[in-house]
């Protein structure tokens, strides 16, 4: 069986190689701290395997994670000088390779799609699935990236096999610590859950609904999903809380709403919140860093005017179809 952990190790090795490169990069004024950041991150990815399997203490990783946050807060990782091709060279290469340049980029979605749509269902001789359950997307992305790299190397024939690593580092250094912010936020969600933040929010919303008004209950469920998602950065974290507070006791039990509609649309109302929040870093801040935007809130600003009317649509859809 192909295991997802293999690909976490691949990520870990990538980060460690980046750390070694950074350590040798004299043009990076912050090379020691930066190398420490990528190095700790790389080791954490491998160590995480043992934490998930309960073979190693999690608190050690916890210390490493807080260490990463402190490094990020102190201005690490920094960027070195970019050693890539000049714009003029790129024009020259583009003329030479033409549309073949798209080939490696297209390998990624095609292979990922094959994994997600077909290989995810393939079983081995012993009846087990070929790919680890629930991980087909990640495994597909990992395999797709490796195949795309092979195609790219064969096509472009760079002078040194280290070229993709240097170019990968160039992109990673643009993203910086934001690369692991999504992971930190997921961790925060877990801590919030264990500490009872969700239950406390449920108690607050209890006081907000006028008794007997269906539209008010529907609106509060949807808006509550959006707001709580904005705070938590994740509709998955908001869903159990708001459903326990309003969705189930009021909308389904008291007003006899159709559960499938209430819950499906409620989750989508939460997604409207995801469009608006820097807490959903992987969807909103990482793209800004990847596109080298001056304004890290640029994507959010483009999304808010869609999110607000769409939240209204969700309220109406739930109101008219669930009751």
């Amino acid at each position, binding site marked *: 069986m192909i295991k997802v952990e293999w690909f976490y190790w691949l990520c870990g090795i990538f980060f460690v190689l980046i750390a070694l490169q950074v350590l040798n990069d004299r043009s990076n004024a912050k090379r020691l701290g930066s190398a420490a950041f990528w190095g700790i991150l790389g080791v954490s990815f491998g160590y995480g395997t043992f934490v998930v399997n309960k073979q190693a203490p999690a608190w050690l990783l916890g210390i490493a994670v807080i260490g990463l946050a*402190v490094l990020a807060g102190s201005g690490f990782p920094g960027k070195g000088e970019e050693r890539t091709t000049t714009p003029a060279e790129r024009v020259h290469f583009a003329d030479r390779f033409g549309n073949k340049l798209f080939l490696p980029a297209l390998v990624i979605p095609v292979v990922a799609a094959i994994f997600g749509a077909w290989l995810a269902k393939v079983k081995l001789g012993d009846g087990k699935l070929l790919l680890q359950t629930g991980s087909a997307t990640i495994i597909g992305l990992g395999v797709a990236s490796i195949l795309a*790299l092979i195609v790219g190397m064969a096509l472009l024939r760079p002078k040194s096999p280290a070229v993709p690593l240097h170019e990968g580092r160039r992109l990673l250094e643009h993203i910086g610590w934001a690369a692991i912010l999504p992971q930190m936020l997921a961790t925060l969600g877990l801590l919030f859950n264990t500490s009872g933040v969700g239950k406390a929010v449920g108690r607050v919303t209890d006081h907000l609904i006028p008794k007997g008004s269906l539209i008010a209950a529907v609106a509060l469920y949807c808006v509550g999903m959006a707001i709580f998602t904005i705070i938590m950065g994740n509709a998955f974290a908001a*869903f159990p809380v708001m459903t326990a507070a309003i969705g189930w006791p009021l909308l389904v039990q008291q007003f006899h709403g159709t559960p499938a509609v209430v819950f499906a649309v409620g989750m989508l109302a939460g997604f409207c919140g995801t469009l608006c929040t820097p807490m959903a870093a992987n969807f909103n801040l990482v793209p800004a860093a990847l596109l080298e935007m001056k304004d890290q809130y640029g994507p959010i600003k483009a999304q808010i005017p869609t999110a607000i009317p769409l939240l209204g649509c969700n309220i109406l859809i739930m109101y008219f179809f669930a009751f």
Partner: protein
Amino acid sequence: MWVLLAIAVVVVGFALRINSMLVVTAAGIVAGLIGGLSPVKILNAFGDGFASSRSVTVFIVTLPVIGLIERYGLQHQARKLISKLKVVTTGRLLAIYLLIRQGTAALGLTSIGGPAQAVRPLIHPMAAGAAERRYGKLPEKLQEKIKGFAASADTVGLFFGEDIFVAIGSILLITGFVDATYGLHLEAIDIALWAIPTGICALLIHGTRLLLLDRQLDKLAAADRAAAKEATR
């Protein structure tokens, strides 16, 4: 109730623009302490959370190959290709991408797009190329606008497409949670079908805004030219 202070830490931290990693860490520690967790338990939670959410960082495995093809002029080629197609404007291109992204996500093919593997190498250079054909060299305001909308087309398409697919995390979370908590037996397919009306609304709203983006860019470019003229006078 005091545990809500942790939420306040997040809100205040982001408002003051303190480094997000520090804000998140501080909020986690505050929530844990008020919630009565011991320091070791808090560290354990950080470790467990980080280890079990590694999947969100896997996108970085695409960076070496994306960087490699960028080195050999991918973005330039994307611009060149799109500048030959005169009917393709920035807004129309992004609207088409929104439709493709949403449609493929609805079929469960969520990793077809994404900011690392599609927006940076392909979609943004094409959108910028279409704008360059119209306005020449792009002033910063236009560049930022196009980048923001390129990212938004990807995200909106993904969010309101993926929920139409049965075996996606959010649907499994809904059925898993309510079945376990309230003893219901919801069919994943019913949840997925009820994601369709919202999906259509999302496509109409964001698609329209993307098509209107061309006019917005016209205005921004005109304002920029006027300002430049003013400056040289």
